[in-house]
């Protein structure tokens, strides 16, 4: 199945990016992607996905991610590793590092549902239809989730600084 593996390989950079934005932890993100790939390859021997491969892979990644979160809820408190210090420096014409750090923190304060949806569209550039299929929700639900996520993010960033930093 070389074609399948090549197609999966082409999606890996996007999966890593999305996983990193979800977790903000480079190691954890790559673990998620590895679990996702193992699972996809295992399922592949049984099933030729009918839908687009990219959406299918994102769906698997999210399932693995959510299951991890459920386990974390039961596990002793763990502190998320803030990877801001190792984020790539931004080009000069981009928002400054501090502004980016604020955005990253605000993103963390969205609900998981909002974060998952917004990142699929705003970071990964998926169409609404594709994102709705990844999240297995109706298109209308996806659209209101995106709207609420984006408005919540903005509200967090417009809030006075001392209210902004929670973690």
């Amino acid at each position: 199945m070389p074609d399948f593996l090549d197609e999966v390989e082409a999606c890996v950079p996007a999966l890593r990016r999305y996983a990193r934005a979800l977790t903000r932890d480079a190691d954890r993100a790559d673990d998620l992607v590895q679990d996702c790939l193992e699972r996809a390859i295992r399922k592949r021997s049984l099933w030729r996905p009918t839908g687009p491969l990219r959406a299918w892979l994102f769906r698997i990644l999210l399932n693995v991610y959510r299951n991890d979160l459920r386990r974390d809820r039961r596990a002793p408190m763990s502190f998320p590793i803030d990877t801001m210090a190792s984020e790539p420096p931004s080009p000069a014409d981009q928002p400054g590092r501090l502004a980016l750090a604020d955005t990253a923190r605000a993103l963390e304060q969205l609900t998981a549902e909002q974060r998952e949806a917004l990142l699929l569209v705003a970071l990964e550039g998926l169409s609404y239809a594709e994102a709705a299929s990844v999240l297995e929700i109706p298109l209308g639900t996806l659209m209101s989730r995106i709207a609420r996520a984006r408005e919540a993010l903005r509200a967090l960033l417009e809030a006075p600084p001392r209210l902004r930093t929670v973690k």
Partner: protein
Amino acid sequence: MTKTEPGIPRDTLHAYIDGQLSAEAHAAVERHLASHQEDAALVAGWERDGHALRALYGPIGGESVPPALSPHRIARQGHGRPTDWRKLAAAGLVLVAVGAAAGWYGRDFTEAGQASTATLLDKAVAAHNLYVGEVVHPVEVAGAQDGHLARWLSKRLDRTIAIPDLKPAGFSLVGGRLLPDGRGPAAQFMYEDHQGRRVTLYIKPTLESGESSFRFANTGPVAALFWRDEGISCALVGELPRDELQAIATQAYEQLG
């Protein structure tokens, strides 16, 4: 926060940012923004946040990928971490028989963790036996409302449950119900073929990760296949020959992923 002017709904402004509008609709929003500063400021703020997200995480998409994440390598290594059944699974699904009638309640289960499997089976078979004979109310929610059923049970189980379509095996969905299982909920889906034979699919959330192979057990005429998938444990129960049950279970397994 600013209110959107009449004529352009909020959703449309978001769709505009996300490039989801037709060329005409896109142009109409642009014209609107040119003459409505408040909306223009709103959109500019959202776009700035979008740029920030892409500046933060976009570069990761350009990094070189660690060798461990090469799909070719993962496939070659027989699916990586040698924790459980994965090597076996490389050759396809493996059926493991865990005992005949005597082993039903777990006396044959020797490995750790299998007590919970026995409980799962116990509950799945009990639920099967209780409801499969019901003519008037075999299910809580009929299969015709499968969208509603899937959303409802996904919410109650805190898992995305895609109700498997077993028509290729000749079984159509009768419906489903929510059941208690220990401290948590479980879902049962019932299917029926044209001869009126019924099978039930029992799904319970689990915090265990990874998958297991298919396992088979039977007691009298009732047989069950059970397995664990990412985040869920499943059992397919029915008075069917093992081969047939396995064909159906394989279809369910594929669609539940």
